[in-house]
């Protein structure tokens, strides 16, 4: 099963259409998609507008490959589940997002094992054909880096102590 997701905010018709057309041309009936509220209605793949976070995680776990916009929610969930993914950034110039932060995300995270970037629709079709050759990322722990946890914990403890000293 391939799971396509475009995120919980804006739609991403360009990506949905590309995956729909790819699935049609390859005769793939095992694609499920979360597509938001776009104008494009997929003809071939099965799609829903939104999923709850729990359903979303379940879909990611059930998938062999995640195909997603370059959003951190999708990326982190796939890394937590240890699933390979193809990400494609939403572009501001096409009105797909408010700015090009997804391009920056794709550049940075495309260097990680198990994450492949598709820069446009043609590139996406090529990378979807690689399907079987994608390597699986190492599963990450379900929590932030120890450094960040310690920083927050320390801040809370210190503020608490200072307040205790005042009273």
């Amino acid at each position, binding site marked *: 099963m391939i799971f396509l997701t475009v*995120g*919980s*905010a804006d739609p991403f018709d360009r990506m949905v259409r590309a995956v729909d057309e790819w699935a049609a041309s390859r005769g793939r009936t095992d694609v499920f998609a979360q597509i938001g509220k776009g104008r494009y209605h997929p003809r071939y793949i099965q799609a829903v507008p939104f999923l*709850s*976070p*729990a*359903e979303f995680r379940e879909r990611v776990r059930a998938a062999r490959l995640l195909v997603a916009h370059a*959003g*951190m*929610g*999708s*990326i*982190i*969930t796939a*890394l937590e589940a240890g699933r390979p993914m193809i990400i494609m950034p939403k572009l501001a110039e096409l009105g797909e997002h*408010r700015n090009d*932060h*997804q391009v*920056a*995300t794709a*550049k*940075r995270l495309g260097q990680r094992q198990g994450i492949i970037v598709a820069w446009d629709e043609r590139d996406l079709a090529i990378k979807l054909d690689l399907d079987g050759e994608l390597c699986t990322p190492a599963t*990450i722990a*379900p*929590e*932030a*880096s*120890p*450094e*960040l*946890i*310690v*920083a*927050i*914990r*320390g*801040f*809370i*403890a*210190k*503020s*608490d*102590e200072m*307040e*205790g*000293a005042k009273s």
Partner: protein
Amino acid sequence: MTNSPVPTRSSVPTNREATRKKLLAVASGGGHWVQLLRLAPAFTNCEVVFVTVQEGCRADVEGHKFYSVHDATRHTKIRLIRTALELSWIVCKERPNFIISTGAAPGYFAIVMGNLLGAKTIWIDSIANVEELSLSGRLAGRYADLWLTQWPHLATEEGPHFHGAVL
């Protein structure tokens, strides 16, 4: 120093359980919420109240108090006012000792309001903001007692600071 598991907490009051501090954890949907959940191990000493924009997230934090509010962005001014009022009401009602947010607009309002009411506030800018801080992140800087970015190259001496990331 004692052998306390939390190094900075050297003068732990014996009745700590009775004086457990309240922390309000606020995030928008999608990636913001996923990142907030990855910080949970930092809050283990607190009573945590969660706020987000999707009712479906309630199941992610079972056993904790949970509010869902309306989402808003800078492009929807009327909705922004509604979200600001919702957060103000929650902060006034809950009177948390700490407020933490991974963005975006709802978290900003919570931090401004919390700052007014004397809560200690923590802003962690989303890891999606690779090239520059988010607008809400920049604005939150004035009101956040701990102001963090997840990218070292965005940190400055005056803040935001860098202490690791959710990945």
